[in-house]
């Protein structure tokens, strides 16, 4: 297996104090090719995405920026965020190194209006810092038919709250989204993720519960149509006691589509009283859909409540019969049930559009 490598040499960014460009490059190269990391590219070719990590980026379009509690600057990141993780996210870290600028959003108090972030291209890294006790609703939309990449780092201070809704519904040549969220004590993060498969669409999500009693929720609905692909890699790390995380991920995969889900829950030593749950359900429609799923647990402390489940299957025959016994034809019944399956994971302020895109078309077919 050939080594994975970055498209060009890296200049040492200022937020990485005391390391030379060579040292950084070595570190990234080593992380990219570690067996744990290669594992994350088991079912999707990394080359196409790696080739674009140094591609020029523009700032995303932002709405509702002029409001109390928000300070937005375009500039250089001057010091590293604790969530930046070379080992687990070398591609994203490389993007951050290549970018000469980042969009830095500081949330200082409760922001009354939802902040809208719209990506129509590869965008500059976005850093969002929520001060203690601040709160924000964030709507993120990605739509472009070209290759594009986005990467976001979010740091939630003590008792900060973020409700994040994200839609990536349009077909795209080659799309990669990286999201890293670190939660401090008592912080609360919720992500409603709605996604359609594309020629290639990959989402890396890394949630770090780094303060006591923090809480993270991930709800995701995905639909992979014929010939499309979707690869979701989720890591939830519990580093501190009494955190709770819940993931519910439903994906429907059509004939000829390919869907990969890797959900890893890592509970560190000392993170006692952790409650971590993951449920991944996949519905295959037609004979030639490919579904790979791997719900992983890595647990280093005994006082945890942790469970995960994954299913791959077709529509419940029992439910189908129930509908048919009420006179509903098999086609309509199937459509209703598959919509119901996805709808369970569609919620939040961007739900309307997601329903339209992920379910509306299904009824017609």
């Amino acid at each position, binding site marked *: 297996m050939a080594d994975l490598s970055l498209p060009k040499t890296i200049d040492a960014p200022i937020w990485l104090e005391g390391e030379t460009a060579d040292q950084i490059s070595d570190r990234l190269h080593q992380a990219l090719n570690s*067996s744990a990391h290669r*594992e994350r590219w088991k079912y999707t070719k990394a080359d196409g995405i790696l080739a674009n990590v140094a591609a020029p980026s523009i700032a995303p379009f932002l709405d509702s920026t002029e409001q109390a509690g928000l300070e937005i600057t375009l500039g250089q990141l001057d010091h590293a965020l604790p969530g930046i993780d070379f080992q687990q996210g070398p591609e994203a870290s490389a993007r951050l190194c290549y970018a000469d600028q980042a969009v830095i959003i500081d949330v200082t108090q409760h922001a009354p209006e939802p902040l809208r972030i719209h990506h129509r291209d590869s965008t500059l890294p976005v850093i969002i810092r929520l001060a203690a006790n601040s709160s924000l609703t964030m709507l993120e939309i990605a739509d472009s038919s070209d290759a594009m990449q986005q990467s976001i780092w979010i740091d939630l201070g003590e008792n900060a709250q973020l409700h994040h809704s994200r839609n990536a519904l349009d077909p795209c040549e080659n799309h990669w989204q990286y999201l890293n969220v670190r939660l401090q004590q008592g912080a609360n993060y919720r992500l409603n993720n709605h996604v359609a498969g594309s020629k290639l669409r990959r989402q890396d999500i890394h949630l770090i519960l780094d303060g006591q009693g923090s809480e993270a929720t991930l709800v995701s609905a995905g639909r992979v149509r014929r010939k499309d692909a979707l690869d979701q890699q989720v890591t939830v790390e519990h580093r501190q006691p009494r955190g709770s995380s819940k993931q519910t991920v439903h994906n429907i*995969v059509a*004939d000829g589509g390919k869907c990969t889900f890797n959900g890893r829950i890592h509970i560190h*030593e*000392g993170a*006692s009283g952790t409650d971590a749950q993951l449920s991944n359900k*996949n519905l*295959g*429609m*037609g*004979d*030639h*859909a*490919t*579904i*790979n*799923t*791997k*719900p*992983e*647990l*890595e*647990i*280093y*402390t*005994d*006082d*945890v*409540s*942790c*469970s*995960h*489940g*994954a*299913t*791959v*299957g*077709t529509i419940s025959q029992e439910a189908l019969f129930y509908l048919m016994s009420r006179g509903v034809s098999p086609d309509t019944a199937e459509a209703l049930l598959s919509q119901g399956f996805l709808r369970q994971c569609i919620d939040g302020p961007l739900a309307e559009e997601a329903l339209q895109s992920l379910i509306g078309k299904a009824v017609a077919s």
Partner: protein
Amino acid sequence: MSTSTVDDLVESGSEYHAGFVTDVESETLPPGLDEDVVRYISARKGEPQWLTDWRLKAFASWQEMREPKWAHVHYPPINFQEISYYSAPKSQTDGPRSLDEVDPELLRTYEKLGIPLHEQAALAGVVPDPAAIGTPAGANVAVDVVFDSVSIATTFKENLAEAGVIFCPISEAVHSHPELVQKYLGSVIPQRDNYYAALNSAVFSDGSFVYIPKGVRCPMELSTYFRINERNTGQFERTLIIADEGSHVSYLEGCTAPMRDENQLHAAVVELVALGDAQIKYSTVQNWYPGDENGKGGIYNFVTKRGLCAGPRAKISWTQVETGSAITWKYPSVVLRGDESVGEFYSVALTNNRQQADTGTKMIHMGKNTKSTIVSKGISAGGSENCYRGLVRISPTAQNARNFTQCDSLLIGDQCGAHTFPYIENKNNSATVEHEASTSKVSDDQLFACQQRGIETEQAVSMIVNGFCKEVFRELPMEFAVEAGKLLEVSLEGAVG
């Protein structure tokens, strides 16, 4: 007065009852591995040319291969040149003879381990010694005994022969049934399958061979008992079981080794072939020396086990109770090629102190309406690491395949790790795959509640652990089930009571 807590219990050490050394004179090849060693082993066993060539081909492959690194285990690099690849008690150098001629010192070893080598004694039922725990001591069991690199005795051969069942050391089968060995050896696990399988294919010394003819239900349980005795030797046994159409067989495997400070390598290969409507049930109670409480010594158990359901409605069932070894790296698997064939994997893996286990299964569904069930129970105590790794693959041809996986971890103490890596790969959407996993612990609260009702800690933990493993124990043949429970108790001594 104080009540003991989980923490206190983790402190003390456990005991290993099979850790003695047998003092016999052995003929042991000096450490080192090259083509000459491979040729020597082959010549020593008087093998035909095809098998010598087969071994050499495996050796050539092994030299090109690299040690697998993906497992969740850590150990210093193994120097394969420091291992001796052949060791046999001198008294046995002429190959297996009748029971009456077996060196009495060896017989005493097995008596001490509770293995019924005397058929009389076996029939009468031997009272098991504590050391016998984890060994097939039941009444109606035929045993093949492998001591370091050679098979020293096989009991009940004649009785089995009456039913047409062939049960003998594989070194003997090479001569007595060459056509079967040549046809099936490496048919499920090719020489190049993986690093350790390639090594085994090059240097395998002995092991058991079983053939059950068409339509025959094997009249008794078959079993092999593996013993590593000599210092600095590796054990590379090879087992091949063929169940012809419509036949049934239940096979048990037990293992122990002396307590030594060095790590010793055990790299076995087990191949099972079940033809149409045949059923093979393979049970293992693995009690290799796990090393001491600081992780010194113990067996590296790097084993490749795989069964092929070659024909329709064939069934292969693996049941394992893994309590020993410093490191376990083992994935008994089933290839479900025949339509409506069935694969099962029931596993209890217990790690204590510094033990590491990376174990699980692969269920490869190829035939229509194939069904597999995986039940894995991992118990981690002390500072150990216990990992389930599994693959369920549904090929495009596997219409209506079904899998159910349940994967539970029990943690005892907060210094251990429990991990789950289940891979599900589905390319046929008429299939249904379900995976569930949960994690629980033996808590101080539970222990206190039991103590408060007058149940001693040891007993309380044993109850909790046994309850946790119940679904797997009930798959074991009766003789084994009780002993498996006892073995868990012994292995948890120190961790929990």
